[in-house]
């Protein structure tokens, strides 16, 4: 531990130059703006900034990329909360609670709580990265295809908790989402499925789905109801945007729980951050004494996933730094950056290039503080900007959504996908079909299928592999427990409601 602190001190010393501090600050701001734009997420932000790092000192270049990565996680919540348009999968859960808070006139509070939770989550993840990275990685390598499959299924089992009152509707949308994800090339065999048109060979981009399902569908609903937002006049009173002690108290325990979940699940390659946010949300929904508040602006439901998706950033860096294995799309691009810089990703990276790596970690620590301060101070700007354009929100949101979908791969096909899912999202919303299970299935099913088929191949056709391995068996029991407890608590709730309603 002392050794880690010494290295960290040396790393922070290396980045405490005016140039590096300016790079970290600018990277965070750019990441925040990129993360806020629909269709652009961490991977896009890092890829856009990568050419700027050529010719930079290695520490500065890595600080730029990690600053953008962290900034996009802060930025993703802005459009989720303000206009119900999450820019990427980890920000979806933020929209579920943050947008209703916006509609209730508590958008500034939602942004303030989410900024604080993001900071705490990022700090916790960084502490684990600094002090426990090699230890955590030592255990993480014991996870194989069966364990990853069970983890994905555990994530899908939280559908029961996200289902609301109608489990059949939740199951319908889950299966729908799973089928949507089967379009395109199969990971295991390379067989192309359901490519009715050439554009479907690469499957359906889930970011285009999110843009339509959340952004466009909300606009269609508002047009149908002839809803006009009334957020009041612009105001610069910081009291309206800084959470009070009561709200901070309500958010503190969920934030800490979300930080733990985000860090340790973020370590796992694949959909770490997305699974983590849904698991964190499901856990808060299970633990709360006021489940009726969820879906209508519950602070716990906002704080925990926000802490989770920021804690997942250092979490995803742990396998990259210690094993050379990227934990997410953004870290995959950073792996490329490490190779371009002439560094050797892998177990020896911290030995051979420790000064560079610790400088990057120091940059993350400083960047996390910068981002908290800038995001809190910028909240009045975001809210007042929304107040200025509130009468024209439909046009602005439609413009951002369509261009965001186009920017995914410069193709109008994704714009059509966004429109189709905008219509689907409208129909789902109108008839109380939950969108959370749908998008969870879209993201997790390809990974679950891939790991499942690999596991069966490893076991030479036997299904017992899922219960023969202790970690996998533990996850099976956890999943069964989640489903059973979730179903029983729903039945208990229904019986209590029936008793209350009976004359």
């Amino acid at each position, binding site marked *: 531990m002392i050794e880690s602190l010494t290295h960290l001190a040396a790393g922070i010393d290396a980045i405490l130059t005016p140039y590096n501090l300016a790079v970290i600050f600018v990277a965070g701001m750019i990441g925040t703006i*990129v993360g806020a*734009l629909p269709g*652009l997420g961490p991977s896009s932000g890092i890829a*856009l900034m990568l050419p700027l790092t050529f010719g930079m000192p290695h520490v500065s270049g890595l600080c730029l990329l990690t600053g953008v990565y962290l900034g996009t996680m802060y930025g993703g919540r802005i459009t989720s909360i303000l206009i119900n348009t999450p820019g990427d999968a980890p920000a979806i859960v933020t929209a579920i609670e943050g947008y209703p808070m916006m509609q209730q006139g508590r958008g500034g509070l939602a942004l303030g709580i989410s900024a604080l939770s993001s900071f705490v989550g990022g700090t916790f993840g960084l502490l684990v990265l600094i002090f426990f990275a090699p230890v955590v990685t030592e255990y993480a390598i014991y996870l194989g295809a069966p364990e990853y499959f069970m983890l994905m299924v555990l994530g899908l089992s939280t559908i029961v908790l996200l289902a609301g009152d109608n489990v*059949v509707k939740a*199951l*319908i949308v889950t*299966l*729908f989402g*799973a*089928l949507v994800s*089967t379009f395109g090339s*199969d990971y*295991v*065999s390379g*067989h192309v*499925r*359901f490519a009715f048109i050439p554009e479907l060979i690469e499957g359906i981009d889930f970011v285009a789905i999110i843009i339509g399902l959340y952004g466009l569908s909300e*606009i*269609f609903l508002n*047009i*149908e*109801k*002839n809803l*006009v937002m009334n957020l009041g006049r612009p105001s610069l009173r910081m009291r309206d945007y800084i959470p009070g002690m009561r709200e901070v108290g309500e958010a503190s325990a969920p934030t800490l729980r979300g930080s733990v979940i985000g860090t340790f699940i973020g370590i796992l390659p694949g959909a770490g951050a997305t699974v983590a946010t849904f698991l964190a949300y499901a856990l808060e929904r299970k633990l709360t004494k006021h489940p009726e508040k969820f879906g209508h602006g519950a602070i716990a439901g906002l704080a925990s996933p926000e802490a989770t998706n920021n804690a997942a950033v250092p979490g995803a860096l742990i396998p990259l730094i210690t094993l050379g294995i990227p934990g997410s799309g953004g870290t995959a691009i950073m792996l490329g950056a490490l190779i371009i810089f002439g560094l050797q990703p892998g177990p020896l990276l911290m030995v051979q290039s420790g000064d560079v790596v610790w400088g990057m970690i120091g940059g993350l620590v400083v960047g996390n503080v910068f981002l908290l301060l800038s995001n809190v101070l910028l909240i009045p700007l975001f809210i007042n900007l929304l107040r200025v354009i509130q*009468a*024209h929100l*439909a*046009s*602005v949101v*439609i*413009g*951002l959504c*369509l*261009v965001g979908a*186009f*920017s995914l791969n*410069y193709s*109008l096909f994704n*714009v*059509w996908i966004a*429109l189709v899912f*905008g*219509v*689907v999202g*409208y*129909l*789902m919303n*109108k*008839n109380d*079909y939950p969108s959370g299970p749908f998008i969870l299935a879209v993201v997790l*099913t390809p990974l679950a*299928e891939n790991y*499942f*088929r*690999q596991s*069966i*191949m490893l076991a*030479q*056709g036997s299904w017992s592999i899922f219960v023969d391995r202790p970690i996998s068996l533990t996850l099976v029991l956890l999943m069964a427990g989640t489903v059973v407890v979730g179903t029983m608590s729903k039945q208990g709730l229904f019986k209590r409601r029936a008793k209350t309603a009976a004359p």
Partner: protein
Amino acid sequence: MKISEGILLAGLAVFSLVLLWGSLDMPYSNPDEQTFGPGFVPLNLSVALLGLVGMAAFKAVAGARRAPRHAPPAAAEGTAGALAAAARTGVLVAAMGMVGVGILGMTVIGVLPALAILLAAVSWRFAGHSPVRSLAVSVVTVLAIYGIFNLWLGIPLI
């Protein structure tokens, strides 16, 4: 069952039937590698989805049949309410259609020009603004989008 739910369930039924049909041509299992093939997941899930859609439709129809048969005759408000709902649906369908036409226009005249026309039309017809104001909103929005996406991020929109 609401008409919108009927449309959603019908759409899901057609979707799952199409995928079920398509997955019949894919290998269900891969004996050489002792695992399941690419047809395993879509075949099973599409059958399950069809079953659930059927169950949901059956429950909705059964629920409607159990509803009280002695409902009072429709009042004048009920007729007016139905007409208002139909008008709102018409506005909504027009909005969706307008966005669709806008996207079609992007293939002909480019993303930004078509977007500018679409945003002006949405602002004028659905937000109730005057044509001049709608045009101003559209121009400002498109210029901001051009500055951020095209000039700064280098995404070709023209």
